[in-house]
């Protein structure tokens, strides 16, 4: 039994927004795999909850006419992985969230929760960064669109206001069409892990498949929030697929990241992973984009 003061089960989004506005101390709970654990360990013990767990309008994935992919935030990780739109157009995201925790966690945990808890280790976050996802927040004054790059304020902190609910995650066609992506989660174990480091690369190759047209290099746990290495991305534009490219990406990333030491891993170790995983993720992303490494 959880130490919960009270729980309100919202019927729909406006109801949830209203309930949050009325209770400035309430915590939103979606899948529960983060919030319930924090209640149990005492950090959120005795809190009030506004549950959006069973709100149907927050679940599902669809494609707009213009090719924009809409992921509703209470969609569970496993439903994302198994979704046909995701499999066809952005398999990298399906793969990324297929590495969260365990199969049971992936059946309950939601992509919206993964993003909104603001942690840098979120397995979905770096890939959403690489895909330039746009988050839709709905509050008392209507909705606003926030590019994911502007969503994080610091560890565990986002721009979401207390009474706002994340209501959509959108990825426009120009951010996935023609791209190949790859996510590597590095954990000490191969399952049941929180990422020691995550690296997501999305790459578009020139028509001859021999050079980089567009690269997105994103990391989790390389800094207090998920991040992109934009300078490195610009620097390798039009570079030929070559050993120099991989070196430049690996070394470039090192100049942009800011990992910290913790008992989980030292800064030095994370830096080693950042360089190595950047190279490896890029190589696989190039293959996924139709290129070859000996081009």
């Amino acid at each position, binding site marked *: *039994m959880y*130490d919960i003061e009270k729980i309100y089960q919202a019927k729909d989004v406006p109801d949830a927004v209203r309930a949050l506005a009325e209770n400035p101390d309430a915590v939103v709970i979606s899948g529960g795999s983060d919030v319930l654990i924090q209640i149990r360990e005492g950090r959120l*013990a*005795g809190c009030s909850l506004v549950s959006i767990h069973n709100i149907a309008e927050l679940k599902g994935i669809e494609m707009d006419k213009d090719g924009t992919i809409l992921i509703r935030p209470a969609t569970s990780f496993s439903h994302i992985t198994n979704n046909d739109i995701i499999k066809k157009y952005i398999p990298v995201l399906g793969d990324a969230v297929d590495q969260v925790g365990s199969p049971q966690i992936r059946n309950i945990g939601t992509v919206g929760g993964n993003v909104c808890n603001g942690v840098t280790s979120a397995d979905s976050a770096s890939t959403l960064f690489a895909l330039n996802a746009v988050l839709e927040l709905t509050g008392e004054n209507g909705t606003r669109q926030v590019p994911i790059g502007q969503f994080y304020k610091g560890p565990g902190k986002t721009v979401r206001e207390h009474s706002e609910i994340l209501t959509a995650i959108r990825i426009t066609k120009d951010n996935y069409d023609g791209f190949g992506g790859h996510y590597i989660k590095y954990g*000490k174990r191969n399952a*049941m892990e929180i990422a020691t480091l995550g690296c997501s690369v999305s790459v578009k190759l020139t028509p001859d498949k021999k050079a980089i047209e567009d690269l997105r290099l994103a990391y989790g746990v390389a800094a207090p929030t998920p991040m992109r290495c934009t300078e490195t991305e610009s620097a390798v534009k039009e570079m030929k697929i070559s050993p120099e490219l991989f070196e430049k990406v690996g070394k470039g990333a090192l100049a942009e990241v800011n990992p910290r030491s913790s*008992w989980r891993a030292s800064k030095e170790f994370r830096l*080693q992973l950042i360089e190595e995983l950047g190279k490896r993720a890029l190589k696989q992303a190039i293959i996924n984009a139709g290129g070859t490494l000996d081009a």
Partner: protein
Amino acid sequence: MGVGKKIDRVDAYAKVTGEAKYSADLAPDGLLVARVVHSKIANGLVKSFDLDEALKVPGVVKIVTCFDVPDIQFPTAGHPWSVEAAHQDVQDRKILNQRVRFYGDDIAAVIAEDEVAASRAARLIKVVYEEYPPVLTVDEAMAEGAVPVHSEYPDNILKHTRFTVGDGDFEKAAKENGLLLIDKVYETQRVQHCHIEVPVSFAYQDANGKIVVTTSTQIPHIVRRVIGQALGIPWGKIRVIKPYIGGGFGNKQDVLYEPLNAFLCTQVGGRGVRLELTREETLACTRVRHAVKFHAKAAVRPDGTLVSRKLEVFSNQGAYASHGHAIAANAANMFKQLYQDEKGLEADSYTVYTNSATAGAMRGYGIPQSDFVTEALTEDLARLTGIDPLEYRLKNCVKEGYVDPHLKFGFESYGLKECILKGRDFIHWDEKRAEYKDQTGPVRRGVGMAIFCYKTGVYPISLETASCRMVLNQDGSLQIQMGATEIGQGADTVFSQMAAESLGITEDRIYVVSTQDTDITPFDTGAYASRQTYVSGKALKKTAEQLKAKILDYASYKLKLPAEGLDIRDNYIVSMADNKSLLSMEELATEAFYSLDRSVHITAEATYHCKENTFASGVCFAEVEVDMPLGKVKVLNIINVHDSGILINPKLAEAQVHGGISMGIGYGLSEILLYDKNGKPLNDNLLDYKMPTSMDTPDLHVDFVQINDPTGPYGNKALGEPPAIPVAPALRNAVLHATGVAVDSLPLDPQKLVEHFKAAGLI
């Protein structure tokens, strides 16, 4: 039927249907809930509590603190009690402790109507401490001026022992010209058992005032004794019930929270109180495997002759003695037993109190630590001589006929060399050693091995005693009550096979009563060491022989034939001369119960006081792939080959080895309990504590060398613990082969490997 058959587990049906009842499943409605309050400092003294806020929480029934418990110090180790004071376990803790000795020490307990109230109150209790600087490592605890963890041990050394073999002077032996020398420190880490069922118990006082405790334990009879000692009441006033348990691996070979649970129920008028630990408490506050620092020296001739070794063992005991020095002593013994030095060996063992989690029994009891130092050192010596490590081992390892010079027993059956040769073929040792010789690039492969030996029971160090009771039912089926406990290892199944073997009654008519109830069950010290099939098996065999004699005596009366010519086969009394069935067991039993002429209820009960022991042995071979830039070790292939005598149930035996290999992989590659500088646990949950998942465990291979052991009741000897022993050093040696980098501390986790590979210039 009988020994050597791959029958299904007798408890499998109950377990796959969810009908098997574990302690928490048996808890009646309406129990109060207890929550332990743990210290938030590692070293100090509780000066006072402020309970006001906590007592105001609705639902709180009572708060008991360290100032309310009996002023009695008691031992917790799951050892047989010794009637000689000098050999009794160290009595160094109370039910709740005012003197705080590790972060998480038990200082108070809340009893409440429900768990939310209990947790809220526990969080609201304010404690005033007098704080001392914590001593967390052996080095800190042994340093000049360190605060004594226990005032009775001013230098923090719980015990120091020393033994020698041969000359017993390493420095003298090492003076010989031309010797190759090693002087190194090897270290093993603190890990935990990770049984999936956390420790849980509930206790109430029955109408006669007897305290009834149902608990998840390996050692119900010892729990009864220790509760009696801790509460200062006669042992007979306590009744301990042990239902199915969700694993123990040694943690539950210690009396953990049963005395507190029993005491708490007496504090609320005998009402039932449930005490269920959380996983975090289990990891932080129950037992762990001793972290051990070994200082090893060795001298070898260039031709591979092992001349002499010296070992210093520094075992981190943690806050309380628990199993104490037995672990370090065991570790030093195996170092001695596995190889015989031409000129001798010396070993010094220290067990040292520190302000950290109490170390106790864990599968292998000091030998996984010992095997790491022994087999890492052996590998390093072989490399120094340039001799193939397998050949080096064949040359130097313990030989058939070995008898331990101090313990005076040896290998009553010996299969170690055959194990090595079997494993060599399986892993393609010679081919792989050659193939992986001159690798370049960031990803490299290697093969490694480690051997071990393991004593089956605890004789002569400790008493070995076991009892069994058999009751023939009216239909000729059989009830068996064993004091020995089923803890997941398959004891009930192999006991039924042993009984079938000895009695000629088929397993489907044999019922092993799985629950131990100290008011009913005959005495046995419990499930530990690798003693049950050996020691308890002897009790069973002795009882079966007595029962069989009674059955045949009755058959003789009934058939009017001499008993000497009769036997029991497949539930029939048969004539030994022509194997003809003469009378069914059912007919015999019904007659025996209800005969108007001679009514006998055929039962037997016997105690076996075991004064024998024998070594089991074996080997692990592992093939690994090391991704150096990521510090990842992938186990490509792994096999354990065991010399465990005759297997009672080969299918269960294999399964037990699988679990041991997996535990060994965790020990070797990923598991370690971490603490901050104040001794506060950092990774006391199953997300951050890295026991292997299914994705970290490769296919596991097992083979056996089955040689009849003349001292085993059915030719059998130890198997329970051994599988976990040789895996970690085999992996370490495989990584060494792959990369040329010798890692001398466990685990070989990614960050440590990356640091090593960087230092070696490999990445």
